[in-house]
């Protein structure tokens, strides 16, 4: 672990200012960042501890949805009655990930920003374009049975490891960020990105931006949904492949279908073909 400056702002404005340095990193639950620092994968010049920011609320959103503060923990979110009632798909996706201990510490914003679990990314003695742009990709031709099968590039076949994000993709959440140029909202489908020639960038946030909350739209898919995760053991393993599926039924027919895949690409993978095939169909084969 390198030596770093530690700051603990108590307003979002101060945090954004502290994050303006290129090598600054925000620390929330620390469940991923601290590991990355121990493995010498990330060597921040400054760690900005955002745990004192007022971002721990789950509140009604103006359009009837919910806004979830970036520091709401995964456990709080999964067990919040508003989530279990209106967005049970999200709750079950969260509970399919990690362990209770990790979920107690990990946060909503942090979950979106967790890095890939590619073995080579975590081993600085190997080449990795995501860790060290231009160094090559050791996973191609190497140990890669957990890697991407969709949307990979010549430079990176890593996958995004989150379960929660697969449900958020299906639910069409919005990510609210704040940076030196002010606030903006990013549709979930535009938040994570494919590796292309710049696999070092997991998402479309700009330098110095901070996730302050995510918004779940009012349309909730509360009744017909499933999160199915296939993994190498029955708990505490990243997905080989997972699917978040949600349906809106009308008169026994599928009106709208949402299908998102996890563990298969550099971002949660919406499958419009599957959604289209299911939508406006009787639902039974």
């Amino acid at each position, binding site marked *: *672990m*390198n*030596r770093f400056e530690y700051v603990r702002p108590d307003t979002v404005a101060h945090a954004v200012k502290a994050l303006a340095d290129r090598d600054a990193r925000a620390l929330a639950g620390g469940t991923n960042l601290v590991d990355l620092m121990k493995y*010498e994968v990330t060597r921040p010049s400054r760690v900005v501890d955002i745990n004192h920011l007022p971002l721990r609320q789950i509140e009604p959103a103006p359009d009837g949805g919910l806004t979830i503060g970036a520091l709401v923990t995964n456990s709080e979110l999964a067990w919040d009655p508003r989530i279990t009632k209106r967005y049970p798909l999200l709750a079950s996706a969260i509970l399919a990930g990690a362990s209770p201990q990790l979920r107690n510490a990990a946060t909503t914003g942090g979950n979106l920003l967790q890095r890939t*679990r590619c*073995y*080579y990314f*975590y*081993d600085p*003695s*190997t080449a990795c374009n995501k860790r060290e742009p231009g160094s090559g990709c*050791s996973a191609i*031709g*190497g*140990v890669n*049975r957990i890697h991407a099968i969709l949307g990979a590039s010549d430079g990176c076949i890593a996958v995004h490891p989150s379960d929660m994000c697969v449900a958020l993709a299906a639910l069409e959440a919005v990510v609210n960020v704040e940076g030196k140029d002010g606030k903006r909202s990013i549709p979930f489908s535009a938040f994570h990105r494919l590796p292309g020639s710049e696999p070092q960038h997991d998402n479309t946030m700009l330098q110095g931006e901070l996730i302050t909350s995510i918004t779940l739209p009012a349309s909730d898919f509360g009744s017909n949904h499933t999160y199915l995760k*296939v993994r*190498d*053991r*029955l*708990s*505490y*393993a*990243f997905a*080989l492949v997972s699917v978040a599926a949600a349906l809106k039924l009308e008169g026994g027919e599928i009106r709208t279908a949402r299908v998102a895949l996890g563990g298969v690409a550099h971002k949660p993978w919406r499958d419009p073909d599957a959604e289209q095939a299911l939508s406006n169909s009787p639902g039974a084969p």
Partner: protein
Amino acid sequence: MSSAEMLHVGRPISRVDGRLKVTGQAKYAAEYPAADLLHGCVVSSTIAAGRIIRLHTDRARAMPGVVEIFTHENSGKAARQDEDWRDDIAPPGHPLRPLHSDRIQFDGQPIALVIAESVEAARDAAALVRAECAIEPHCTQLEAKRSQAYVPPEKRSGIPPPSDPRGEPEQAFAQAPIKFSREYRVHAEHHNPMEMFASTCVFEPGGKLTIYDKTQGSQNVQSYVASVFGLKPANVRVINHYVGGAFGSGLRPQPQLFLAVMASLALKRSVRVALTRTQMFYLGYRPDTFHTVSLASDHQGTLLSIMHDAVAETSQYEDYQEALVNWSGLMYRCDNVKLSYQLAKLNKATPCDMRAPGAANGVTVLECAMDELAHELDIDPLELRKLNFASMDGNTGKQFTSKALDACYREGAAAFGWSGRRREPRAMRDGHELIGWGVSTGTWEAFLQTASARARLTDDCKLEVSTAASDIGPGTWTILTQIGADALGLPLEAVSARIGDSTLPASPVEGGSWTAASNGSAVQAACEAVKHTLFKRAQRMANSPLADASFEHIEVKSGGIGRKDDPRRSLSIAEVMHAADLTEIVEDGQASADPEQAKRYVSYTNSAVFAEVRVDEELGIVRVARIVCATAAGRILNPKTARSQILGGVVMGIGMALHEEAMIDHRLGKIMNHNFAEYHVPAHADVDDIEVIFVDEHDDKVSPLGVKGLGEIGIVGTAAAVANAIFHATGKRVRDFPITIDKLLAA
């Protein structure tokens, strides 16, 4: 001691060290404080073969708090001969000498040691050391070296080589009506006990060392350190009071021990070196093995030929060996048997013993082949095993001291409900899950090693029993306390055990499931010697009520010594000691195998393992819904700790069946899943119902206590039972362990 005299032995006593452990008071090797302690961090090689051209240490040296950086160019003085580096457990070859030369023979090999005033400074500086290397070709792939496999020219002490062929195995195979040859593979599994390897070397003025080490044998470490550094054994004391799991990984001294002692002697300061979880993957492991198993039988299922040929990996520098194929010659009755065992050298660290070394993997493939034979014959797989029951050891021609395996089959099957099994695969289903039932036999040798113990009885009726044993988790502290209490008729609270210290009476390393039998019998012998001395002293007293008694008529209980047949004729222990002007009686005892008996008998622990799996056919997800493990292990000293041993073994067996595997990038020669997130062992969700049965087994030959040992047996057979259940559920036979989703879907 008869069962009637046993108040504590045989009862489910909770661990006497349990409270210390769960409250954090039990100290482990990396937790002992020392004045002015220095901290070491190991720098590991990142290539699998080559030479170090230069180690760039300038940036690391500039880090505040760094005291010294040791490399092969400035490592301290150490022995030059291989023999001086060979510990009690070492296989033939050239033992690893950390920082000895510029040669790199495996990824993860220690190449430097950073010593600093704080653990953080050492760790951060270690990350700045850069090795400039000349890379040489390497091979980490067993299949690539299989054709160059060789029979190890020098045998490893304590490991029987495969027995010579008997009968006409090839001819019998050729002529048999039912036969097949199958290829199996069990991938390498890595040791990951909860406690990582660490040594705290306390340097005392005058050069004496007290070393707190994570080891399964304090005296093995003591003699290794004395021999490697040319020290007097009396000046090296090794302590391992508590060991946070080991499973064989702590049988041999690990590199952090050498490094801590080397730095301590060079700097004349106390030094601690602890390995990281990643570095645990560069130590010993269960070797990757290929197996060809050929079975032949008549139409009724009587075995006519067994051939088992195996190739196992070893390192460039040592010929690690384990009894991998021998089981195939002794588990079933068969007159025509041929076994072979070869090694292939790879650029990896030397493998090491891992829970039931050789049996966990070797028995697994034989038991899968037996299941395949039962399927070929269309007979019940349990019936096939009973039909070929071996009532003597075919490898040696010797008798078993006991073998209640038939009771394991019977009681295990009854508890499992085996009679309700539909024979054909894919016959049982529950919703979207296919259900399969599988069975396997398990076996492990029951050893009695030479061990010594001391018993100290004081005039206030307090007993201390001591031996340089270790407790790597099975409950050694507890069973020695129970044995001592029963031997001298004392309540448990009056007895204390002392173990985990090289200054105590001689003990072998804790391994092979022999500690309960060996050290337990030694404690019993020492207590018996105390009783004898007490009796002699009592007889010498004026007007002794025991003057005309013989030792056999005497019992010691409730703080007194008296005649069994006349409790009124007794004396208190205090009055006997005071009359002799004693405050304590101290005696030593020993246990060792009887060489005469060994000419005629062999001893094995046996088990029958039954597994139910549920397989989601579309997704390939396997759940082990329940396991019944019935074990015959002689006398059970403590059903509670004994059950825990079996539970742990079964869980490791589930891991062998479904999860554990080092994933190696053979281009780089590197293990890539070197952490607990990616190296999978069963999580809680993977472990469902496990029922443990101990069948009655009386054995008056295996050890003075009639104990066989339980550390290993739980893992043996479990993986095969699960694999056989998967076949029964799906009709798919995966012969490559672990059985992961991709292999099952592709089968």
